[in-house]
């Protein structure tokens, strides 16, 4: 008895080159190649996945990759699909999906551009969102250690009340 979720995974596999599976009822995780992103997104939006829940970025420092995940929900089928793709960490560029999910995708990409430094090609509104006059590196990268930064910038060892922050 084939469940709805594994039926959908098989249908996508027959049309595109992906790898993935259904994790449990109502959750599917698939990994795709970066060049297929726009085609697959158009395909699933046509099949009812009109709500983009989030766009998230994970920084895998040792492998040198950023893994970008698009989470989309269908009100008809009641399934959540997560599409993951990987790009190079040193010069991160990817096409924008704001032609497909409009303002919803645009604001998520603007946040990830500020916090991770990714260029989204085709998104014409990438101004800074949360920070004003910030001149350091993109804050959420794994090689920017906050505890080291805070100890050198804000606290001082001469104040004996702040010594506790140094161990």
């Amino acid at each position, binding site marked *: 008895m084939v469940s709805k979720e594994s039926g959908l995974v098989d249908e996508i596999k027959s049309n595109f080159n992906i790898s993935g599976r259904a994790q449990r009822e109502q959750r599917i995780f698939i990994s795709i190649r970066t060049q297929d992103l726009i085609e697959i997104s158009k395909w699933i939006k046509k099949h009812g996945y009109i709500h983009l829940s989030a766009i998230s970025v994970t920084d895998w420092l040792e492998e040198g990759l950023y893994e970008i995940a698009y989470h989309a929900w269908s009100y008809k089928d009641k399934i959540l699909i997560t599409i993951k793709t990987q790009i190079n960490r040193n010069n991160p560029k990817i096409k924008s999906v704001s032609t497909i999910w409009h303002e919803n995708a645009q604001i998520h990409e603007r946040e990830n551009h500020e916090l991770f430094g990714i260029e989204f090609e085709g998104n014409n509104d990438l101004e800074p969102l949360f920070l*004003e006059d910030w001149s350091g590196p993109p804050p959420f990268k794994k090689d920017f250690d906050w505890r080291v930064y805070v100890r050198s910038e804000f606290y001082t060892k001469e104040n004996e009340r702040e010594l506790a922050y140094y161990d």
Partner: protein
Amino acid sequence: MVKRSEKATKMRKLIRAIWIFNWFNSCGFAELVPLVGSRWDMERFGMIIVGTPRHADVLFIAGYQTLKSIKRAKRVYEQMAEPKVVIALGSCTMSGGMYWDSYNTVKRLKDYLPITMYIPGCPPRPEAVFEACEKIFQHVKELE
């Protein structure tokens, strides 16, 4: 006749009831707005919330400050007229608190504004705020 400085005489005449300009950041909102409500009615002590810094005596800084919002708080402080008092509420405001390792919060508020009174707590209860206001009246009485 006790001889007092000019500032002390002015403060004794003007501060009988405190008018507050609120700068409630996140946590301050949930514990200071009930002070205006009907259970801990602060209007019976003469304290009201005003809409512009020119009318206010006290600036209540409640909740953690970030680098973006402390600039606006400083401008509001400069627009208030003398005599004025700053009260800092909550442990994240005074010393970083739970966000001690965040890159964007202000860790030592006294580097930016002169603070008269600190109220610790996470968040402090409404009774603590009333006790702090009583101590201000006491402090003004003893000024010389």
